[in-house]
């Protein structure tokens, strides 16, 4: 029994979610191999070889895999999967994109966003926006699984010394091509792995007012998130959205500012260790999950909070 973990990376650096996914693989047991598919990704492969508990790193370095296009990487992964009992990928937008394609090529069902491993064939996963937890058992010969990174503590990124081996696949399927991308640049920590997250909602009233959150975030070394209402109103970029349809976060501290706390938003943050809600409506549902609530006008609270920190 061996598990193949698909590395998340940007061709230059290994993403933290890979370490959480390896942790899920350790809970399953057996040998752990990591696949790095990309273009000029030797540095990523070297970083993957240092992950504690990984015994082999497979590298598929090809222009066709540079942007992890599903049409190109899915056949590569499905081909390699034959030798494994489990194939795991982080439930990032990349993992969500290629992994179901891998599962269908292997003619097996995929198990999405597991939050716990009960045994090598039994897993827990949230359904209905996190309002129910299903325990599912798979009898598939190859178990294809995406992992909710925030549900597993990362393994150490240092200390391992896995062998690196080159592999190749079928390359470019010729049905899709990369045109371009717009990556939001930020000096703040990445939202899904930040220790502190400060999120703004409709109550922020304008995109300009998000400056108040940025100032506070910089004091705390926090990432800034947003509710769907704030994103739809154009206050914040959509990759900042926290919720069922956006990112799932579980930081040590989550500060919800001007956010009412709809089911869809709670699905993305209710596993945070400590939740603070700042809202002027004492009836807002967010107070039902908040450890510390402050009923007050956020425009008075935020500058004062910044001053006191």
């Amino acid at each position, binding site marked *: 029994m061996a598990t193949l973990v698909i590395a998340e990376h940007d061709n230059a650096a290994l993403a933290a979610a890979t370490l959480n996914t390896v942790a899920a693989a350790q809970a399953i047991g057996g040998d752990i191999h990591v696949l790095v598919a990309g273009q000029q990704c030797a540095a990523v492969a070297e970083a993957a070889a240092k992950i504690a508990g990984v015994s082999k790193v497979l590298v598929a370095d090809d222009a066709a895999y540079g942007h992890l*296009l*599903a*049409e190109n990487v899915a056949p590569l992964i499905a081909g390699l999967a034959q030798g494994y009992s489990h194939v795991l990928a982080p439930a*990032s*937008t*990349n993992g*969500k*994109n290629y992994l*179901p*394609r*891998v*599962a*269908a*090529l292997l*003619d*097996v*069902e*995929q*198990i*999405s*966003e597991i939050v716990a491993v009960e045994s090598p064939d039994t897993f827990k996963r*949230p*359904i*209905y*926006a996190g*309002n129910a*937890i299903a*325990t*599912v*058992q*798979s009898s*598939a010969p190859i178990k294809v699984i995406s992992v909710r990174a925030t549900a597993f503590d990362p393994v150490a990124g240092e200390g391992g010394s896995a062998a690196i081996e080159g592999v190749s696949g079928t390359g470019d399927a*010729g*049905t*899709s091509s*990369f*045109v*371009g*991308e*717009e*990556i*939001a640049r930020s000096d703040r920590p990445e939202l899904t792995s930040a220790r502190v997250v400060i999120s703004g909602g409709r109550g922020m009233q304008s995109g300009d007012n998000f400056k108040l959150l940025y100032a506070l975030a910089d004091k*705390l070394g926090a990432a800034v998130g947003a509710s769907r209402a704030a994103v739809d109103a154009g206050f914040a*970029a*959509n990759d900042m959205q926290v919720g*069922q349809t956006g990112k799932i976060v579980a930081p*040590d*501290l989550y500060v919800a500012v001007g956010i009412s706390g709809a*089911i869809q938003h709670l699905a993305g943050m209710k596993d945070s260790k400590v*939740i*603070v809600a700042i809202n002027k409506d004492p009836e807002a549902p967010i107070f039902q*999950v908040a*450890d*510390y*609530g*402050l009923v007050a006008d956020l425009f008075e609270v935020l500058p*004062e*909070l910044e001053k*006191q*920190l």
Partner: protein
Amino acid sequence: MKVLVAVKRVVDYNVKVRVKPDQSGVDLANVKMSMNPFCEIAVEEAVRLKERGIASEIVAVSVGPAAAQEQLRTALALGADRAILVETDEELGSLAVAKLLKAVVDKEQPQLVITGKQAIDSDNNQTGQMLAALTGYAQGTFASKVEQAGDKLKVTREIDGGLQTLELSLPAIVTTDLRLNEPRYASLPNIMKAKKKPLETVKPADLGVSVASTLKVLKVEAPAERQAGIKVGSVAELVEKLKNEAKVI
């Protein structure tokens, strides 16, 4: 081009679901059902493609119980030309649904298939990608913009760091993100007209598809309850609690 849109009947997104005491699932008796919100966006996008002269015919398809006819009628009222219901009372996994949709795609030969990115009940986010694998078509998942570029499709996708644009050969599969469009409401005259539009019903066996599953749900539980905490009176008190009680700053 001909466009196929897949829609799913799910519990309405505003409903706070309850887990059954015997842990066999979620209680759906007498609960309001609706079209999955991402599927509404898929229908809207197809209708807009038709209004822009890109799509020539829109076929709505659903895999589900007889009652899913309601959601297909909604799709027809929003602008789909005809509908197909693959009727089954079993709750199928994404792979079985993708196989059934593949059989419909083989028959209908659409140039473009639009599905939602995920259903808000199972939260799987798999069907569109699986259908793309089974048909061998290119996939544009989590789309926030779809444009025709000659004989190709230009799709802007929402990815973790921002946005990514891909060019896909046709035929292709697109799955919708929330920001793709704002779905319209069906007007009463259109709802009346939709009653006369054709709705064909087929069974999985008619399509020659086996829906056997390798996945078994052992139990469904309510998540650990989070208790409401305390309300603090001032910013100073909040900072003091976070520093000394919760020790998170």
